[in-house]
Every structure is written in structure tokens, then in C-alpha cells.
């Protein structure tokens, strides 16, 4: 907010026609925006340890979550550890190059270090930080450190196979987990049914479709049916 104006920063990655069109916008162009839509991450009472596990452009929302927590009323009670994944060092979505000393101290990413948040980097090719998937890096951390599952929570955003793995890790250990899902969306307001996410119905083996735009994008990790083969199988059944 600046006086009577509200400024919103939009961080986006060009992946398709819509984001490509966004690159043609110039200063003073008018755009019409509907929002905010859907839900967001929530931090339940009693949580003391927060893990952020993210990859690629999934960084954007969790970075914002970290900021909200550290600027919020419960900042003192909560400790955050961030795990950032990327294919290569160059793929890390951070502006400044890392500085080695901070990295050794466990504060690899400036954007998080600003808030005193520990951060660990993993790259698929080992060109920076941990050599391997960000989820393996997270698993190793869990092995090396003691944790009270009840007071911990994991927030994750990134490619769906990564979310699936994170949700599985969380499920295995009884840690709460919120995943931010992504679907191609046409309407964004729950009318077109294009952004379906298969979810387990509590206390039953049945599943239903929830709408990512309206019921999400954040879902409980236990709820989502991550089945990459599901799409193909369902298509064949028809």
C-alpha cells in the first residue's frame, strides 16, 4: 500500500500462452484481475517446526508463507527449515548468487536468511548443494535430526511427483503436510470442472473430485490421490 494505492507484485514463469501474453504487457496497461480465489496455506495452532519443501517456481508461494510466518504473531515459537530443489544451480529461482560461508552455516538462500530461516539446496546434477532430488535431501535431514512429529508441519509446492513424494514421507511419519497443487484452469471460480483433483473421502475407500481452483490449491497431503498413471488409466477405461 502506498497512500491510496495498493501495489501487488506478481512473480511468474512463462510456461504457456497466457504467461507469454503477460510478457507483452507494458507499464500503465490495464489488466482485470479476479481474486484472491481458493484457499491458502494455514498454520494450525501448536506447530513449532515448519518444513518448506519446494522446487522450481513452487518457491514463490512458500517464500511468501515464510515471510508471513516470520512477520506474524507466532514468529517466536516457530522454527523454519527450507529445502529448495532445482535441476541445476542455474535453475534456482533466486536472484543473487549464494555465498559459500552462509551456505556452510545452513543459510544458503538469502531470501530466507533475511528472516533467519535455515535453508538447504538440492540440485539434481549436484551443481549446488545436495546432489540429488530435494525430497532425498529432506529425507536425509529427517534421518539425521530428531523430530516431534506432532508439532511439525510440512508445506510443499512444486512439480507433482515431488509433492507426491513429500506427502508420502509425511504420511509415513505422521507429520501434517499441506501441498499446493496445480491444474490447468479455465474459469478459476468453480464452474467449469476443468481443474479436478482426485481426493480420498475421509473414512472410506472412495474418492471424489475436488476443484483445485475453489477447494484448493492447498490440500492436505493425506487427502490427495497422487497417481500419475491415474490419468492414463481413466482415459483407457472410458
Amino acid at each position, binding site marked *: 500500500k502506498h497512500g491510496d494505492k495498493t501495489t501487488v507484485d506478481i512473480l511468474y514463469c512463462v510456461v*504457456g*500462452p*497466457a504467461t507469454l501474453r503477460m510478457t507483452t504487457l507494458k507499464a500503465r496497461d490495464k489488466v*482485470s484481475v*479476479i481474486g484472491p480465489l481458493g484457499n491458502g496455506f494455514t498454520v494450525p495452532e501448536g506447530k513449532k517446526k515448519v518444513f518448506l519443501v519446494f522446487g522450481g517456481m513452487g518457491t514463490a508461494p512458500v517464500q511468501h508463507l515464510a515471510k508471513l510466518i516470520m512477520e506474524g504473531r507466532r514468529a517466536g515459537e516457530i522454527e523454519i527449515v527450507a529445502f529448495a530443489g532445482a535441476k541445476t544451480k542455474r535453475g534456482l529461482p533466486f536472484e543473487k548468487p549464494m555465498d559459500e560461508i552462509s551456505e556452510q552455516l545452513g543459510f544458503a538462500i538469502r531470501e530466507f536468511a533475511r528472516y533467519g530461516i535455515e535453508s538447504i539446496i538440492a540440485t539434481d546434477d549436484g551443481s549446488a548443494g545436495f546432489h540429488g532430488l530435494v525430497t532425498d535431501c529432506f529425507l536425509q535431514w529427517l534421518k539425521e535430526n530428531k523430530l516431534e512429529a506432532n508439532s511439525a508441519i510440512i508445506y510443499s509446492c512444486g512439480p507433482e511427483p515431488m509433492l507426491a513424494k513429500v506427502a508420502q514421507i509425511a504420511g509415513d511419519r505422521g507429520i501434517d503436510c499441506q501441498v499446493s497443487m496445480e*491444474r*490447468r*484452469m*479455465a*474459469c*478459476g*471460480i*468453480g*464452474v*467449469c*470442472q*476443468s*481443474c*479436478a*483433483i482426485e481426493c480420498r473421502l475421509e473414512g472410506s475407500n472412495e474418492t*471424489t*473430485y475436488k476443484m483445485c481452483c475453489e477447494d484448493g490449491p492447498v490440500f492436505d497431503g493425506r487427502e490427495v490421490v497422487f497417481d500419475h498413471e*491415474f*490419468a*492414463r*488409466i*481413466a*482415459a483407457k477405461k*472410458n
Partner: protein
Amino acid sequence: MVGKAHPTSYMKVGMENMVDISVEFGRLRLSNPVFTASGTCGYAGELGEFMDLDQLGGFVTKSITAQPRMGNATPRIVETDAGMLNAIGLANIGVERFILEKLPALSKIKAAVFVNVAGETIEEYVAVAQNLANQEAVAGLELNISCPNVAKGGISFGTDPEQVREITSAVKQAAGQKMLMVKLTPNVTDIAVIARAAIDAGADALSLINTFTAMVIDIKERRPVLANRTGGLSGPAIKPIAVYLVNKVYNEAAKERRIPILGMGGIRTVSDALEFIIAGASAVAVGTGSFVEPACAARIVEGIRKYCADNGIASVKELVGSLGE
């Protein structure tokens, strides 16, 4: 000729109030000729936040089937040049829950409510129609025999005149006093043949067009982007074909039988809507356009009023089918 009158703005203000944009749609009198298209506006409640639904002439629900349907796997949509493909697969809550949970809210809006009916067998269509026949909130049924995104039923009913006749008369009987509108697919050699079959079998109105079967391929993965492989193409890309087909159905089937047409396919602006009306549609529906701009349909209502006022047209009815040589 239109476009030559140049009233002052003072006159225009006067004119806009005097213009009559109500239309007769079969035996219904609608406050204006603008509908929302099936599947693009849910069950009305969701859109209420973005537009006053009372401003609409008509509202068509998402397709309703006898049993609830989960729909297809995702991805269900993909954007294309000036259009999109969808393969939702008729995901819906089923006619019983629809009547219990959704119809009460729909009964409160002023727009004429059409429920879009779909199924895999004639019996299913009939079952849905029977359930709706006594619902006061329902002005009419739209018979979806043109959905390209389901393995059984859907479009297969809509491409053969014999089947069109059979399903139309079966549903007509089940629908009782409700107006029956039959929704046509453009995926046929001669749409007028199908239109006449529907009219002969008792259709009170026709709506067109539904989407074109289409495919987008992911060249990296070498497979279709949509989980359903194919989807229906909608949006501005198909508009010129839709306008042509509306004009053809108007001239070759609807006009002499006095059957009204609900025209749709790529409508996004007032001028798009007017093209359909001039081509022969008594009313128009906005589908994909609502995704880009949820209040698109309401804006078009106002635009039609303004067009009539600016051009000295007393009633929008004069425009229906007014295409000249």
C-alpha cells in the same frame, strides 16, 4: 440501412430506455436474448458473485445425468489459438442432488432456466426429463445429443437423423409441458437434416453449436495433452463456422417452422452476439467467453440495448434473421 442515424447523446439516453430488447423464444417471453451456455456457468450460484443473474435472459445449467458422474481424468482442458479444448466428461452431481441442492437457488433468478440433459442411453435421458418435468423452476430442457467427450451416448445420438428423431420424441413425451430445446453438433455433413429431424420429432427450439471434436498433441511426450485424448473446441476460433451454421439452420429448417434458435460458439462481444441474431438466432449464449470475463453475458445485454438505441431499432426482434443480400 443501419448505421446512418446519428442521434445526439441526449436522444440516445432517451432511446435506450425506449428500446425493447425482450424476445419471444417459442412460448417464452425473455427479458433479453442473452443466455449463458451449458457447462460454462455451473449451476448459477458460482457466478452470482460476478454478475447479477437477473440481468440474463436465460440460464442453461451444466449437463445433468441420471446418476452422478465424476467426469474424465485431467488434464481436461488445453488452450489453443483463439479457443480451447475441453473434455470434462459431463462431470455432474446427478439429477436428484441437482433438484435438492441446486434448483432452489435457480428458482429465484429471473432468467429462464433450461436444464441441460445428457445420458448414455435413451432411458437415462428420459429418466432425467421425467424428474424435471414437474419442477416449477425449470422453464425448459436442453437435450445434449452433441457432447463429443463421452465414450457412450453424447454425440453419437446427434449425428444420425433417425436417432435424433427417436430420442427427441422420447424425451419430449417425458418432459410434459416443459419446452424442449435440442442442442446440435456441428460435426455433421448437413446440419439442416438433423435440425429438421429434431423439429419433426417435437423440438420446440434448437440450440447450436456444441463443440468440434479436436486434439492437441504434446510433441515432447508424443501423446495427446488431454487425458481423454480428444476434446471439444470452443471459443472465438469457431465463431465464423457457428454463424454460418445458425444461418443455414434458420434458412433451411427453423424459419418456416417458426422454431427459435439459441445461437452460440465463440461469442465474446456485442458485435459477435449481433452476428448470430442477424443470422437467425432469437437468442444467443455465451460459453467460453465467461471464462475470460465472468460478467461477459451481462455486458452483452447492455451492449445490445445500446446498439439498438444508436441505430434507431425499436425492438431487437426486428434484427432476428435480418441478414440481407
